[in-house]
């Protein structure tokens, strides 16, 4: 997984953040994230179990499932913010939380306050050095190679996400799609090996959804970054996906989209007849998915009845 330092985009400047990081090296193809028989409990209730997931370098993986099933919780487990209830979770060859400096994280998010007067590039820059104490010294860029490197790296990621035209405007004035691009740049700025994206397409309009999805896929290929993306709707990212992890109350299924998003697999997961329909333009629609009131009146209520079957 030494893919971060051999990024496809040539970088002339040495990234100060990356130099302090011991270059993670290993045989190409070693999994970036692996979850074996993973389960998680939140407030005394099991959210999901039996999760098997292997994300290789440069993979684009979507996490799907009904509301409240714990998709964001999976991200928190991978970040080491929440311990798994069982199973084995390895991130970049270590326990979760150990390698967070090599993970780019984009939380599920509110937009910035419209009156916030901080430039987009400054928000990106915080992704690079926001956890360092003290203030940056006001040395002119040409006298400080480190600062020049940081500036170059920020320009590079801003260019990569196509935000150069508006990165110097206050972020509160930007549209949702523009803010999202800058936040992706923030997550990318330290050359992470993995991007964890929590519903990045949420609250974007359809053209922007398609554009941001294409952007993430391009970055994943160009920079050899593995992407684990929580999504509510699989369709905008369907053409780019290598794998899908589908979480449901009955268990979880992981595999290629064609193998997982099928009538048989989902019916087995939900333990109810579910039908996957492909529309004429190639979009997938899941019909009869029990997201209806019967099971989702109150997501904090303990699971009632017999929807706790293992998959298979």
């Amino acid at each position, binding site marked *: 997984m030494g893919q971060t330092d051999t990024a496809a985009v040539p970088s002339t400047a040495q990234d100060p953040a990356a130099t302090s990081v011991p270059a993670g090296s290993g045989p190409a193809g070693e999994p970036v994230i692996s979850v074996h028989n993973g389960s998680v409990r939140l407030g005394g209730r099991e959210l999901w179990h039996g999760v098997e997931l292997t994300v290789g370098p440069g993979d684009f993986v979507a996490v799907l499932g009904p509301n409240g099933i714990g998709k964001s919780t999976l991200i928190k487990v991978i*970040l080491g*913010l929440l311990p798994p209830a069982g199973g084995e979770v390895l991130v970049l060859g270590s326990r979760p939380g150990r390698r*967070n*400096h090599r*993970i780019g*994280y*984009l*939380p599920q*998010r509110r937009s*910035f306050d419209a009156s*916030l*007067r*901080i*430039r987009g*590039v*400054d*928000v990106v*820059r*915080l*992704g690079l*050095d*926001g*956890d*360092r*104490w*003290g*203030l*940056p010294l*006001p040395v002119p*860029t040409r006298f400080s190679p480190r*600062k020049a490197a*940081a*500036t170059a790296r*920020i*320009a590079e990621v*801003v*260019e990569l996400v196509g935000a*150069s*035209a*508006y*990165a*110097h*405007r*206050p972020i509160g004035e930007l549209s949702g799609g523009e803010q999202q691009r800058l936040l992706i740049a*923030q*997550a990318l700025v330290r050359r992470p090996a993995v991007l964890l994206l929590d519903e990045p397409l949420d609250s974007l309009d359809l053209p922007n959804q398609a554009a941001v999805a294409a952007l993430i896929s391009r970055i994943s290929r160009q920079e050899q970054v593995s992407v684990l993306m929580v999504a509510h709707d699989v369709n905008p990212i369907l053409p780019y996906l290598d794998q899908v992890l589908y979480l449901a109350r009955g268990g979880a299924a992981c595999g290629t989209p064609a193998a997982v998003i099928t009538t048989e697999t989902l019916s087995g997961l939900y333990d109810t007849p579910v039908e996957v329909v492909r529309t004429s333009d190639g979009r997938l629609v899941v019909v009869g998915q029990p997201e209806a009131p019967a099971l989702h009146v109150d997501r904090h209520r303990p699971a009632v009845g017999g929807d706790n079957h293992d998959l298979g």
Partner: protein
Amino acid sequence: MIEFITGPLSHPFFAHALLASTGIAAACGLASYFLVLRAQVFTADALSHVAFTGAMAALAFGVDLRLGLFATTIAIAVLMGSLGRRGLADDVVIGNVFAWILGLGVLFLAIYTADRSTANGSAGITVLFGSIFGISGSAAMIAAVIGIGVCLLLVVIARPLLFSTLDPDVAGARRVPVRLLGLVFLALVGASAAEASQVVGALMLLGLLAAPGATALRLTSRPYPAIGLSLLIGVLDAWIGLALSYAIPVLPPSFTIVGVATVAYAAAFAGTAVRNAMADSRQRAPRPAATIEV
């Protein structure tokens, strides 16, 4: 010209006032940038009233005034921070707590004026409205040292604090202690408030704790220059205010300092409003792809 500057400085009272207010205004200016950015101005408002109660309690029970001020403001600051999520307290809770604490202040004021025959009748007024020209040399020195200390601590936590203000989730994932930083910040605001109540008085603290940061945020959207600007504006407000009050003795210094801070903010507000209007009228043309410079 030289006399113009050395004249006032030859008076010890003015030199002391200048020394104390420089340190305090620097600390307040620095804190105010974050207060405005974090939308915690109301918390600062509450702390200013807590400062009054703390000082009155110290007077009523015969404890050192400074001790009372610092103990109460810092304690209440941390309390308010810990009541809310991420060190940001709920508006209604703040309102109730500080209304009651103000009531306690009135009680202490009554105890102080009733029980102590030697009491200085206008002590309450002094605490509320400040008396920078009455500060002693040693007190001025202490104020300056505390001000510089608060500044240094704020500078040390500035970048992670900015990160956790703008982006708490990502900062948390990067192991920035978001909640702790919020509490430390409020404690530092409490210390600044305690010091500043000696300059402009408990009631007008917001002049130093809100105006410089709000002005700096109007003038630039680059965070690090804005932090420096905020400090500078705070200090300049204090200096110009003191000079004005010296030149026109009928104007009390706390009024001139707060007045200068208000005028500076109003000017920045008007200036940016005009600039925005002009930018709007210039038909938001697509800007040339700016070269990225940080």
